């Protein structure tokens, strides 16, 4: 059972079950806990190789036991996500913890990943359960529906969930090269049904400079 204690600490109450969490993110626990490093995020040999090849690496640990365990990472804001059989796409650097019942994997993001400086691949989480994702400042959750498509700055994007199509928009014109660009040269447009998580901060990316 995930719950937030304040906005920057995640408390997980466990009764013999397990969670997967970012390596080294445990700050405290009471009760009996066992920590085990999960090589390759518990995705097996194939997942391990995929992660190594795609550069979407994450080191996870499995925490199992009785009691409460607290997680935090560099005072980042933590956001809880409930998954009911749908798929969450999140950058591996923004993932803090998931229920151990959730499957993780990698997926190709194409140009979006390249524009936000995070590589061409992203992490997917699937199944039923809870996940905790991190953001720089509290994330704003925005709904996307058929009549309300959403456009997002690649540097502020952290995760999305649901049945969404993403397309990459480029506003690069000759003015960009003359230093008179609109400052928002790269954008990701989401269409379909789902929600998008954005953070009130932009990571450094090539998109921030043009």
């Amino acid at each position: 059972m995930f719950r937030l204690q304040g906005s920057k600490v995640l408390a997980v109450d466990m009764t013999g079950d397990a969670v997967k969490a970012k390596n080294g993110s445990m700050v405290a626990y009471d009760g009996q806990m066992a920590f085990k490093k999960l090589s390759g995020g518990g995705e097996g040999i194939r997942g391990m190789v995929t992660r190594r090849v795609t550069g979407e690496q994450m080191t996870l640990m499995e925490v199992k036991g009785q009691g409460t365990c607290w997680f935090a990472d560099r005072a980042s804001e933590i956001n809880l996500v409930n998954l009911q059989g749908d798929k969450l796409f999140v950058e591996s650097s923004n993932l803090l913890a998931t229920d151990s019942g959730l499957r993780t994997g990698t997926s190709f993001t194409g140009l979006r990943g390249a524009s936000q400086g995070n590589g061409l691949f992203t992490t997917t989480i699937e199944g039923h359960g809870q996940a905790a994702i991190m953001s720089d400042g509290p994330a704003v959750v925005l709904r996307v529906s058929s009549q309300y498509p959403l456009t997002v700055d690649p540097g502020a994007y952290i995760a999305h969930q649901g049945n969404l199509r993403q397309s990459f928009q480029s506003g690069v014109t000759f003015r960009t090269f003359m230093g008179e660009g609109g400052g928002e040269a790269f954008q990701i447009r989401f269409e379909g049904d789902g929600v998008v998580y954005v953070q009130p901060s932009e990571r450094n990316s090539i998109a921030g400079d043009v």
Partner: protein
Amino acid sequence: MTTYPGAGPVIHDPMTLPADDSVNAYTFCVELKGSEWFLQKGKMIAYYGSMEFNGIGHGRLDRLVRTSFHSPLHASDWVVASGSGKMLLADRAFDVNSYDLEEGNLTIRSGNLLAFQPTLALKQSIVPGFLTLIGTGKFVAASNGPVVFMEPPIRVDPQALVGWADCPSPCHHYDHGYMTGLMGGLRALTGLGGASGEEHQFEFVGAGTVLLQSSETLMAEQATGAVPHEPGVPGGGGVPGRPGQQAGSPRLPGQLGDLQRRFGL
């Protein structure tokens, strides 16, 4: 803080997002209905609807820029957002607040200003690194930590100063006793004997409001460029007897900056 503590996060859509108001302490929502906003480059994080972002130099914006943008040094940092929809603004997870000006004037550190309505006119302040907004309208500013409002007379730490409204521009204040004499000089130079780090302040007098941030971490300084080389402009270097450029070589139009002068050509 609508998101915490929660049974679940609040999910926003264009109907529930506020119009020209804060979503939370770090995110501001601007509603455009065929209208325009000036916006610092790269501060848009997401938008619904259809919008266009154009650099200040864009031809169609000429009239708008002529009436509300008077700072050529900052032109490359600003864009105009136009169209219709709702747009979210944020800056490095700093606190974001909106302020209303009514027939007023307010001077703000250039890096802290995120966006403003074109009903306001933006001008460069005589104090380097600061911008002045004049007129009636709304603007959005970021600060590291919440903003505190103070009334003059007051002396403030230069790093905590965000801006000021209505009162005259500040002057420097040095702690005389601490800075003078042999020991004072040594202390200032070496820090030995305990420099408190608070020997220098900005002093405000007159009627008005001073805005402070509750942290001494500055926003990344926006390049403010150089002030024009004109007599009477502080820092402009156009002082008689200390000419800003070498005598006998008047600055030609189209000259390559001041490179030649730097290399002694």
